[in-house]
């Protein structure tokens, strides 16, 4: 007998049932819906508000705002290039330092160690993600920067001094130190996403690899390759965090709006200039320009985060 042969009566109308719901039910469901919509509205509102507040600067400078590195509150000339440069270089450098380490930790925690080690170590890595950035910055000024000045930078300069990247005066603070702090801060994010996507790869795949005589690393490598878009998502998410990070960077990057090849030189980031100048900004064009930097930051992190989430969903949603 075919299913299509069966004649079915009229549906017991869910509409009818729903219309007979108690007022409390209708009220509560709509109340939670209202809050959920509030959440969406909030994000839209943030975008609109920041766009609106940067209108003056956008009108005044147009595209030259992002192509000029002239930032002078006295003459009211504002161009964000130096900050954009500082943010991009420090974040990408941080990602390059952090990514191999993060993948290593993720593999270490999910594939290598016994549970008795995994639990405390993963707890510590979680804590690392929860430490306020002000403390990273504080530690950066008084511990990391002196260490960079006394040990790391002289060593780099003597080994790779022929590269413009590692030339110039040694202050301790500067682009390289900022990148290093950022790398420490984003490692927990990237490694936890990597662990999540590795978990989403079925164990049977690894077992199959072992059955074919693969070594442990080869099996792990296969899992990593299968999870690569998710890991990339984690990396991009970490990049987004690094781009928006404010306090720690502000405290160690040197806060000098310049574009220099050397990583030892002080630099300035988009978030840092907002943090440093906003409260004391005089003149609406100055404030508007700072908010436009915020708008750029918002736009970039929005794109980066959306991209990251799509990549992560693509792996974790399959299971």
């Amino acid at each position, binding site marked *: 007998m075919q*299913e299509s042969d069966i*004649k079915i*009566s009229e*549906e017991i109308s*869910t509409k009818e049932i729903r219309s007979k719901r108690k007022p409390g039910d209708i009220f509560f469901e709509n109340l939670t819906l209202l809050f959920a919509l509030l959440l969406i509205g909030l994000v839209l509102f943030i975008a609109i508000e920041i766009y609106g507040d940067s209108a003056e600067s956008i009108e005044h400078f147009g595209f030259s705002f992002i192509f000029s590195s002239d930032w002078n509150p006295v003459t009211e000339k504002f161009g964000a290039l130096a900050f954009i440069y500082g943010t991009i270089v420090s974040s990408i450098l941080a990602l390059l330092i952090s990514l191999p380490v993060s993948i290593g930790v993720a593999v270490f925690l999910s594939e290598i160690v016994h549970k008795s080690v995994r639990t405390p170590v993963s707890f510590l890595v979680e804590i690392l993600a929860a430490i306020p950035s002000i403390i990273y910055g504080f530690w950066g000024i008084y511990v990391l920067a002196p260490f960079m000045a006394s040990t790391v930078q002289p060593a780099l300069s003597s080994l790779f001094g022929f590269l413009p990247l590692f030339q110039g005066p040694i202050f301790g603070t500067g682009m390289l130190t900022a990148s290093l702090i950022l790398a420490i801060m984003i490692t927990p994010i990237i490694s936890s996403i990597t662990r999540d996507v590795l978990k989403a790869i079925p164990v049977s795949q690894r077992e199959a690899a072992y059955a074919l005589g693969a070594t442990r690393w080869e099996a792990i490598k296969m899992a990593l390759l299968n999870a690569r878009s998710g890991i990339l998502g984690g990396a991009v998410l970490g990049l987004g965090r690094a781009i928006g990070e404010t306090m720690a960077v502000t405290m160690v990057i040197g806060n000098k709006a310049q574009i220099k090849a050397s990583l030892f030189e002080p630099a300035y980031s988009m978030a840092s200039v907002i943090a440093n100048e906003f409260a004391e900004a005089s003149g609406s064009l100055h404030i508007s320009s700072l908010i436009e930097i915020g708008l750029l930051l918002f736009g970039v992190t929005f794109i980066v985060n959306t991209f990251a989430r799509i990549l992560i969903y693509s792996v974790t949603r399959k299971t």
Partner: protein
Amino acid sequence: MENDTIITDTIDDSEDIHDSGKHDTADTKTALRTINLSVKFFDKLAIKNINIRVKKNNVAAIIGPSGCGKSTFLRSINLMHDLTPGAKVYGDIYVHNEHITDNNVVDLRKKVGMVFQKPNPFPTMSIYDNVAAGLKLNGIRNKSLFDETVEKNLTYTGLWDEVKDRLKSPAISLSGGQQQRLCIARTIAVKPEIILMDEPTSALDPVSTSKIEELIINFKKHYTIIIVTHNMQQAGRISDYTAFFYLGKLVEYSRTRRLFTNPREKLTEEYVTGKFG
């Protein structure tokens, strides 16, 4: 099998259950009626045009191989499919001569209680609070009524002596069989007229099972019971009528004695004699 869409709800030689094919509003003996009840999950028909009538103060058992739609049928009676994504219910259901859409779902479920396959006491509540939950959550605030309800229903389900000294301890500290009897006490505390039971003993040991079977037989005085079971002996022991479901259809609905000894349908006979299923 070809005429299954017009199978009447019961084909019994004895007297009082017959089907006129229409809903008779003056009928006071019937607790539950379904007319052409079908349920779809997304595009798949899970049960097809089920017509059943259950008399008041009777126990009706539903048997059939797993996946035949027994639970789907049961859960459509108190509109539990409401929560299931993609589920749609078709046809008509009458509970004590009222169409189920005549009242709201909440009132329907007060009249039609349900006991589930796995004991599911509220994990954050004590034994006492579990029994009183139905009253408390429906807005009653009467301590002495709670005390009375808890003692009466726990006594009724044979738990009182076992738990009276630790009413305030968490319900999940009880054994599986005790938890299930607690769930039954919780169900009858809201004074339902019909109790739906979805394989209530399948997760329990034989001793707990026999205690619950005893309860069900006693319950007939006060309630109408519809029980899904995968255990044919159980159906034979406790029910007055038995329905045999197969592939989402009602194959036969007869007096239990008859269904097991002299079934009308060949398929039923094959099933009850263990030829398949």
